[in-house]
């Protein structure tokens, strides 16, 4: 490995994380796992922000944004969990692909 680690490397990581997140969301049955996938996506975006800010020398805006996103992710997770629990109450399972009463 000759080339120094630079922006691109970080970006690649985020890209992989992003893809994995999508993959998780699509493939996992369990709603909680789907949520994990979402978290991965958010994180990958965060990495982008921070990395860009660092190498583009954009000051701290990148980090701030990442901060906001993290907080937001927390809020989202809270609500998501609540909804999942609710689903569990009504459907007594949380398999996303079995929850398809509403269709066509």
């Amino acid at each position: 490995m000759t080339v120094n680690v630079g922006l691109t490397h970080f970006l690649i990581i985020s890209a992989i994380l992003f893809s994995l997140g999508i993959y998780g969301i699509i493939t996992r049955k369990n709603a909680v796992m789907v949520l994990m996938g979402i978290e991965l996506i958010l994180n990958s975006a965060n990495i982008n922000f921070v990395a860009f800010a660092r190498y583009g020398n954009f000051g701290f805006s990148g980090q701030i944004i990442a901060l906001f996103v993290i907080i937001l992710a927390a809020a989202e997770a809270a609500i998501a969990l609540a909804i999942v629990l609710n689903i569990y109450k009504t459907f007594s399972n949380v398999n996303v692909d079995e929850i398809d009463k509403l269709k066509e």
Partner: protein
Amino acid sequence: MEQTNLIQSLNLILPEIVLTVFLVILILSDLIFHRNKSIIPYIAGAGIFITGLFLIFQFYDNGFAFSQSVNALRNYGMIAVDSFGSFFKVIVVISSLLVVLFSFSSSEIKNTQDRIGEYYALIYGMMIGMFFMISAADLILIYLSMELLSLSSYVLAGFIKLRDRNSEAALKYLIYGAVSSGLMLFGISLIYGMTGSTNLYIINSLIQAPNINLFTLSFAVILIFAGIGYKISSAPFHFWTPDVYEGAPITITAYLSIASKAAGFALLIRFIKTTFVTFVNSDGFWNLIGVFDWKSVLVVISILTMTLGNFSALWQNNLKRMLAYSSIAHAGYILLGLVVFSNQGLMAILIYFVFYLIMNLGAFYVVMLIANQIGSEEIDDYNGLGYTSPLLAVSLAIFLVSLTGIPPTAGFIGKLYLFIALVDAKMIAVAVIALLNTVVSLYYYIRVLKHMYLVKADENTPVIIPSLGNKVLVSILALAVLLFGVYFSPVINLAKSCLIIIGL
């Protein structure tokens, strides 16, 4: 960030502040009057009303709020207050007011009486989100306000617990929403990486640089569009719409179909106008920056949307679901106003939204009143309704005809202006497709009329006697549709005065 600026900014976002204040009041009063919560709705209504007043007072104000000091071009704020925004905010306020009124008589909401405070609090949350969406000029603000809107609406969609289709709607909405907002965020991050800023105006100036990488840019833009497209439920990001609309409580469905759609459109328009338009020429046509072929993308998407919406609606037997598809189709029509990229088209959109607000809310309202009684929205349960409960049936007929766009109803005028815009932009072919779509849409709208009137009433046809208040409200909406069908210049004039989107 010196004081004066902050004061100005706060002045500019006064309505939002009022909303927030009332949100707090609402929560407090929810705690105070936890014995009898019957007063909560009135507070909520009052709050919205007062917000509306504030909005009216500074309707024509414009300017930037919350400018950032870090970069050289400091005068572009995070928030752009202008009459265009005010117009959409008014739409939001009116629809919220109506939805609050609906909620008074919605049996679904009545069943959750002791959580009524949270219900309204969440509606407030949505409103705040929408307000910021409408006037946001910064990608991060856009993202966050959208999230605020979404989070509240996730909950509201599943507000009635223990009814499975409710919770299912909530879950789907959540997952779908989270993913598309995730995509959007990623897109934003890419833009940020290319320009180093999240402020639309700055981005606008930067993406004109020659060394900008078009492929990445369009990728990012498409990702962002996925986020917005999901809000305005335009194909191919519309899939959540039918399920959620069918699942959610009718009041919320109505609210989503108007308010959040309106906010989404306002956002889309402002995003495109500020980010990709350099100037408006004398004929009112917008000059797009050549970095991304918005025109063809939007043409394809809008045609796709309206066709898909109309054709799928042909098959629906659940009225709520049918209206969901029809609202998708209407999103397509409204996009037509955008694809011409002219003030002409923008005006058409504004006009259309006013009428769409009335007729669509009206339709949902009637559906709700009927559902209160018979607890179903299946078209077959509407058989012979025209004879047992004439007022509701007639008004529903009026709303549906108006949605079809046949004179002398407001819907026709809305469509007329859209087509005028299209013809003015010499996009005859698109106009023809849209017109044929209208003919198709007739099929399913007329089906409802058929079930209500052409099928004779029998013993199991419900007799629905709405309360006086409901009667009045329905008739007002219906009459408004007819009135605007024949006398619409005030709306046009209003729309005409609201074309200012402050930009470069």
